[in-house]
């Protein structure tokens, strides 16, 4: 009986902390992106200042690419904001992908807060020049 109670309590606590976590993370930063395409594939560049390799997460499945990151800023104890353009430390942005992209061959790099992601196209999806025969 007491064991069952303890279990219930655990569940409640977990739910509460999840709710709290959601509230805290309500404000997300939308990283500005450049996206362009050529015959080989699609390239995405995203500005995510403050994010390093360890605080960046890229989730890819067949249909979507989710970019998330946490800006890690050194700040002294007890610092008060005098002014703040940036009101959160969490970046999140997602993009729908299409079937001709080879999601298992995505390459990503991060330098000075700029994320670069390259998604190649399947060979059969690359554009072919179609010759026109005359006569």
């Amino acid at each position, binding site marked *: 009986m007491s064991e069952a109670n303890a279990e219930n309590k655990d569940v409640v606590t977990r739910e509460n902390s999840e709710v709290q976590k959601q509230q805290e993370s309500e404000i997300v930063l939308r990283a500005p992106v*450049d996206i*362009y395409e050529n015959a080989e594939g699609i390239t995405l560049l995203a500005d995510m200042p*403050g994010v390093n390799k360890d605080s960046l997460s890229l989730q890819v499945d067949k249909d979507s690419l989710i970019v998330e990151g946490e800006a890690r800023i*050194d700040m002294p104890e007890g*610092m*008060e*904001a005098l002014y703040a353009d940036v009101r959160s430390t969490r970046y999140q942005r997602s993009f729908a992908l299409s079937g001709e992209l080879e999601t298992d061959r995505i390459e990503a790099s991060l330098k*000075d807060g700029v994320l670069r992601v390259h998604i190649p196209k399947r060979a059969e999806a690359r554009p072919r020049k179609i010759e026109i025969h005359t006569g």
Partner: protein
Amino acid sequence: MFGRLTNFGGSLFDEFRRLDEELNEASGRWPWPAGIRSVARGTYPQINVGSTPEQVDVYLFAAGLDPATIDISIQKNLLTVAGERKSPVEKEVDYYRKERFDGAFRRVITLPDDVDPERVEARYRDGVLQIHVQRREAAQPRQIKVQ
């Protein structure tokens, strides 16, 4: 956005200001009046300024900057940061989005009056430029002992 710039009592501007303040209040996002040297929010680079009794720290969220192009100067309590972020348009590709900033920028930040312009340090890491300015000791809170 219009902030204190329009504080001269014209009714049209008053209306703008009222609307602006109401929007800001409704969104609950903008507690500070716009500084006279400030630029539109969202302009590259975005800036945060924080302070403690000992120091003022300025954070510029400037991803992809070449540190060699950054020019920082301070005159009394006016901090100027200029630089150039190159994000050229790629050739022979089709763009779907081009949201990232490309070009030169210059921001002037008014710091509290008691900063010491002789003691400024700057560091660029992970796309964040952190400028650390020490405050004068006289301005820091002092414990007074009762004799």
